[in-house]
């Protein structure tokens, strides 16, 4: 079988790196502390990785990997085509190079490497790879292995042209220029780029990425497996999207802030880190010298810290979404973020909502009373003692709107709630004169008046259906309006709100964090509770058989058994906007029981 072209090119590239050990003027060569110090500052972006080799070995040697491979997903992978191709390719590498592919990887890329890129004057792309190899002995071993591999895979002798730059020799084969710089291998498709790298290695210039004002904002403390940094203004298609006006108000409320932050962004960096406890992805947008455009301030408001959200998390939520925006200011300046037709639809929406708020003008009288944080929380339904639970079992959801002063302004929300129920009753009656009316019943939770809607459903049914999941309720407590799909959830939130109070440990405002959180175990639990229902839905929605549907769901359940939680946060930090995603994994062999 012919080796694939990609594999051949890889060998050619790597071997060319390793075979060359030209005479060095080592007395002038600097010690390389960071690879970024030897990458020319003219690159528009680069990626760097550290300790890939040890992490890969640790992953492969871990007994925890066995659990993963023992799962049905793992078994499917081991029996699949991808796995057999991987084993076949690794075997080919070992056979031709005479070395364990892992050892080769460890010596070549496993310690640290940097891959940078810049635009050439001709409009092409110039790429530079810097990699820190192991000891000279290890290097010699790798070289030998690849010399064999090259011959085995190409059947050609390895012949290069030799050049000098300020008495440091380097070589060329095809489009590839490369040199060894005292344990660091530099390879590029541009002779000029290689010469600049050699100059940096000999300290003839200081124009390195490490000293670049563009890249200087990158933290040296960040823990990461891989980090990529790019100057976004050099990405033409992306640059055109920054700060663009949107035609959807909800989209604007969610995204215009980040989109605007990118407009003044001089550096975008992304880091990826992983361990057995989770996978972390971080994206940071660093503003340029002009700093953050304050036009986008409504998307990054400062709010006093409160323990409320942390405390309700402890009550076993399935998930939550927290959004902090100065909606009133955003609405006021919506023309700056939205297309004209979308601002028109906002005005119509405002007029419609005014009807519910007892005639108060939504934009001018309701919005200014809103606080800066809106949250949506979800919790699995509690188990019904002694009576059948509704099926499907739908998690309760609640919208928490913060107000500047709920005592003064809570009333219009109660009016709006009652108006909505009345309108729904009238609509139902118009369609069916015998339809039961929904009644709003006041109910006390501590000292707080809650309003709970009785849907008029028959009591104690044998097989309660989907509608038995809902007892829409409203409460005004502290500085919060809570509108929930179930009374249980509203009650729990009211209790927590009363306990926490309106403030927190500190009232010093700081930039608020938008956050999405999903609890893996709660998700697995609700999936387990609805397994039969969901399988049947798969049958009618996807046309699969019941057995196939159950198998698909079992795979999702198995995936969830590895997942502790998923957390996404976005926030402003000084003159940078950050996005963090963390997928928490359940480590060890713990068998997770479904939680409520």
């Amino acid at each position, binding site marked *: 079988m012919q080796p694939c072209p990609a594999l051949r090119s890889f060998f050619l590239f790597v071997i060319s790196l390793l075979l060359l050990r030209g005479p060095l003027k080592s007395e002038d060569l600097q010690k390389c502390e960071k690879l970024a110090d030897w990458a020319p500052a003219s690159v528009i972006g680069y990626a760097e990785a550290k300790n890939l080799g040890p992490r890969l070995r640790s992953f492969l040697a871990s007994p925890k990997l066995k659990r993963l491979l023992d799962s049905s997903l793992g078994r499917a992978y081991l029996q699949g085509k991808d796995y057999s191709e991987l084993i076949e390719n690794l075997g080919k590498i070992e056979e031709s190079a005479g070395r364990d592919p892992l050892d080769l990887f460890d010596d070549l890329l496993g310690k640290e490497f940097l891959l940078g890129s810049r635009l050439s004057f001709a409009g092409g792309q110039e790429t530079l790879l810097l990699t820190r190899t192991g000891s000279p002995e290890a290097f010699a071993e790798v070289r030998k292995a690849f010399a064999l591999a090259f011959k085995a895979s190409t059947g050609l002798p390895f012949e290069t042209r030799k050049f000098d730059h300020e008495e440091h020799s380097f070589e060329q084969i095809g489009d590839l220029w490369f040199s060894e710089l005292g344990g660091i291998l530099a390879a590029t498709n541009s002779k000029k780029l290689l010469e600049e790298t050699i100059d940096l290695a000999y300290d003839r210039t200081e124009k390195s990425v490490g000293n670049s004002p563009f890249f200087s904002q990158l933290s040296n403390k960040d823990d990461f497996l891989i980090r990529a940094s790019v100057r976004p203004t050099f990405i033409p298609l992306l640059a055109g999207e920054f700060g663009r006006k949107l035609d959807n108000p909800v989209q604007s409320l969610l995204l215009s802030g980040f989109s605007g932050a990118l407009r003044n962004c001089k550096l975008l960096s992304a880091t990826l880190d992983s361990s057995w406890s989770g996978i972390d992805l971080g994206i940071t947008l660093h503003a340029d010298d002009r700093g953050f455009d304050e036009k986008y301030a409504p998307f990054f408001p400062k709010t006093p810290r409160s323990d409320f959200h942390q405390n309700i998390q402890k009550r076993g939520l399935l998930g939550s979404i927290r959004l902090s925006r100065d909606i009133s200011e955003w609405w006021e300046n919506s023309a700056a973020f939205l297309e004209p037709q979308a601002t028109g639809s906002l005005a119509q929406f405002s007029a419609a909502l005014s009807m519910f708020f007892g005639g108060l003008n939504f934009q001018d009288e309701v919005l200014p009373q809103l606080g800066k944080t809106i949250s949506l929380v979800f919790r699995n339904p509690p188990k019904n003692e002694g009576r059948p639970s*509704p099926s499907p079992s739908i998690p309760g959801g609640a919208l928490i709107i913060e107000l500047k002063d709920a005592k003064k302004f809570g009333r219009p929300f109660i009016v709006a709630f009652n108006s909505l129920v009345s309108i729904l009753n009238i609509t139902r009656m118009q369609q069916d004169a*015998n339809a039961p009316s929904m009644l709003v019943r006041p109910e006390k939770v501590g000292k707080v008046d809650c309003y709970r809607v009785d849907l008029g459903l028959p009591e104690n049914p044998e*097989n309660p259906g*989907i509608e038995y999941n809902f007892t829409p309720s409203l409460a005004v407590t502290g500085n919060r309006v809570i509108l929930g799909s179930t009374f249980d959830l509203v009650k729990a939130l009211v209790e927590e709100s009363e306990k926490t109070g309106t403030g927190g440990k500190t009232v010093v405002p700081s930039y608020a964090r938008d956050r999405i959180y999903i609890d893996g175990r709660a998700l697995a639990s609700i999936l387990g509770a609805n397994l039969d229902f969901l399988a*049947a839905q798969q*049958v*009618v929605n*996807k*046309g699969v058989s*019941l057995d196939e549907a159950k198998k698909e769901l079992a795979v999702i359940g198995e995936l969830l058994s590895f997942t502790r939680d998923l957390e996404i946060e976005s926030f402003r930090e000084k003159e940078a906007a950050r996005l963090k995603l963390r997928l928490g994994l359940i480590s060890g062999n713990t068998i997770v029981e479904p939680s409520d």
Partner: protein
Amino acid sequence: MSAALTARERLEPFRPGKDGPWDVAAAAHLARRLTFGSPRKLVQKILELGPRAAPAALLADRDETPEMKAVADSQRRIGSTEAAQTWWAHRMLRGNSPARDKLALFWHDHFATSDTKVRDARLMMDQVQLFLRRGPGPFQSLLKAMAKDPAMLTWLDGNSNRKGEPNENFARELMELFSLGVGNYTEEDIKEAARAFTGWHVKNRRFWFNRRAHDTGPKTIFGLTGNFDGDDILRACLEKRACAEFIAEKLFNYYLGTPVSEELRKAIGELYLAGSHNIGSLVEKLVTSREFYSAHARRSILSSPADFAVGTLRTLDATAVAERLPKEMSRMGMDILRPPSVKGWQKGRAWLNSNTLLSRYRFANSLADSTESSPRIPWDKIKKEGAEGLLTLFFPEGLDAKIRKTIIDETGNDLKLMVTALVELPEHQYI
């Protein structure tokens, strides 16, 4: 054949060999009429059972499969009209008793209850379950159950039928549409019958006899006077000869579709009465008759959207997204669980107009699509059998030579294109 035979002879059992061959074409004809479509496996099974045993076997009561039970349970719990429609579409497509579903569809059209007014999909599902369970049994039992069915009582305003202010809706439809037919009762009979049904109400989604609202006074129905209640009226309707002929003729039209003469109407009525009002028994006799297998009975019924859509998918052994099927049928003019009026759907040529025909074509085109929501057809199996196999699958009785040549020439070896072309053929619009 029919011109030379008397009505009774036309209804006599089909004799393979003497009256015609018992072959794949005959078995496929029975499959199309008694169920939906003519899937190869079913046709083979019918062929083996023979014309006498096959109808009884197909109409037999079977336990639901775990998949059918799971879907019924989940859709009932959702409780929306769309969920109920999806449940029934899934049953028709993947259920294990399509003959019962086909008969249930007949009763759904006959009693024509619509969720647009009932507004309780679970009650609609209960009604369809009633059709599935009692549809092949004695008509008396079905009619009595329907008179107390909560969906029916809601549909025909049972709760507003009170002593002193009778609502005639149910009584009128009972006589005109459910049992006797126009001309077999008087306006006075309807008024008096309505009084007998006063107090037949729905409470908590169940039948409730509201004594306070019931008119206990004497009533005169069909010339007889007595202190009649609803059950007495139902009995009186069922005892009339007109009821036997009315129901039997409707079933004859549904399964056979050939013209009914006065003589034939009487003969079918006798067949019905001979079977003690048992619907399953009558259907079996009708579809084993010489008339059923006669040349003029074949491909003589313009397919309903359910026959067309479900039948095509079943013939192709396709798995489809059941959720989409009711929407497809609705575009073709049949919004199941939502018949257009108390008279049910207009049938025959009324199924086809410029809109519904285009919807049928669009459905035919979707068969060759490979989007996630399009039906999954076992193309490998179809490819194995080739163009000939496909032609025989859809038209085991053969296809006009010219049409056949055009189809083969125009579609080449593209079997997907051929499926679309065959499903769009005028011949395929008939069952």
